């Protein structure tokens, strides 16, 4: 169970869709303005609970607890073979011999 002091990620709605700025395009107006922020959990809770966290700058933010010890999941992506083609062709254009 997520405990007091755990480093967590929370999610909340900053503006409901009817509260959004007048200038936003139609598709964006159909969805709320959402926020994700990380901080220290102030009381034991379960994933999905409404919680308050203390952020790095000491601010308090409230929202739904979605992850404990949040992971960076961005990566080097799936392999893109076209990039190998570009590299090989460019080297050949500058006089590199194609490998047998």
């Amino acid at each position, binding site marked *: 169970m997520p405990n007091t002091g755990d480093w967590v990620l929370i999610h909340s709605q900053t503006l409901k869709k009817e509260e959004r700025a007048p200038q936003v395009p139609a598709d964006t107006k159909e969805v709320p*303005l959402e926020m994700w922020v*990380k901080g220290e959990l102030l009381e034991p809770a379960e994933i999905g609970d409404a919680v308050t966290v203390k952020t790095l700058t000491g601010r308090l933010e409230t929202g739904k607890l979605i992850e404990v010890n949040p992971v960076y999941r961005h990566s080097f992506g799936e392999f893109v073979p076209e990039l190998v083609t570009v590299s090989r*062709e460019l*080297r050949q254009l500058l006089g590199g011999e194609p490998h047998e």
Partner: protein
Amino acid sequence: MSNNSYEAVMARRDAIMRASVGIDYSTFNTGSIGFDYEQMMKETSYPMDEMRRIQSSVGVGSTPIIELKNLTALARKYAPAGKGARIFIKDEAANASGSFKDRRASIAVYHAKKLGYKGVIAATSGNYGAAVASQAAKYGLDCIIVQECYDSNAKGQPEIIEKARKCEALGAEVVQLSVGPELFYKFLLLLEETGYFNASLYSPYGIAGVETLGYEIAEQFKEEVGKLPDMVVCTNAGGGNLTGTARGLHQAGAHDVQIVAASVDLSGLHMASDKDFNRKSFTTGHTGFGVPFTSWPDRSDVPRSAARPLRYMDRYVTVSQGEVFYITEALATLEGLEKGPAGNTSLAAAFSLASELDKDQIILVQETEYTGAGKMSQPQLSFARENGIALKFGDPRTEVPGESVILPENPSLIKAVDLDLMKLRRSLVKNALKLVDTNEVSEIDLAYLAEETRLQVADVKKLIAEISG
């Protein structure tokens, strides 16, 4: 408790800004449209020597220039006889946090520290976040970075997620939002809540900090190459990169260098659209920022932007997403320099523009940026594929932003496309006329608009008559 509705917070905007930037912009107003730009820059920033001292003490500036001999040789294969300028690059990725944005952050954060602010906040999904976080770390200030990062399915742009990671690695708090211009609303609330300094990209500090880049270019080329570059190409989004570089060149006496803006063509995609957000492969350096900020700089997060690129650009060209990814690969495989794609926008343009210049002329690409997971060709292209964007070889001119990314079939197909500067000037004047009735435009305003557009007063008058007629 104060009213925190969108309308109420926006209505407090001027007061929040005054407290958080420490500049009363209204003192620089001259007419009902115009303001004294040079006076603002003079009174609110630092002299060149002092900025260079500030920057060198925190690992910013004095980045190397590198001649790209292999790329030059490649460009010459396709250039007319006698054409194909020498291409150089200034390796700004060598700055403390990996981009030229460190120059902007170093002056802004130094100033915040000097004024006694406890922390700094910046609204940015770009490299500027890492730059502010890095400088805040050096000066022991708190730092909050506010990013537009996810669409309504909580799917984030890999490039922006990487920047969030970097900001957090440098000790900053990162507040991530879904798509929409109300990022500015949250930004204002945070400024109000914390009392921190607004390290805006568009404050005089944020722009003056880039002047050292232009100044260094002139110094380095005179010393290391023996002559100034004939053309400098700047990736253009909010206009600060180009404005600061041009101003720095001028301060070094380099008045004849041609300044070219370059942006990735994202026409057809709406920047505030939830659906379009993840259909683009570039999150900065594109026309979605470049064109509106050039034709009206004062749409930024400060009342008067210090980035006023139309005052300095001699040309404005666009390149396609596929062309930039291709040239990013070329820079890696032919020059041994692996850099982030967005910063290579100007390189794609320069590769094409080199064929217009003589062989003994010099064209400089004035930045590179760091690269890493999420922020390189492979993750950005595989993300595009995941989102249903077609990736193929062909003629880049057939690329449709949001539908396809076309890698050039061969390097001869890389072609910078000129935008009509006159159209941008007209658009700036039109935007200015939204502020006042035509009959209220004073002589001072006319002179101001002439400076903004680099036109004669008579031409501005003609434009005004056309627009209001």
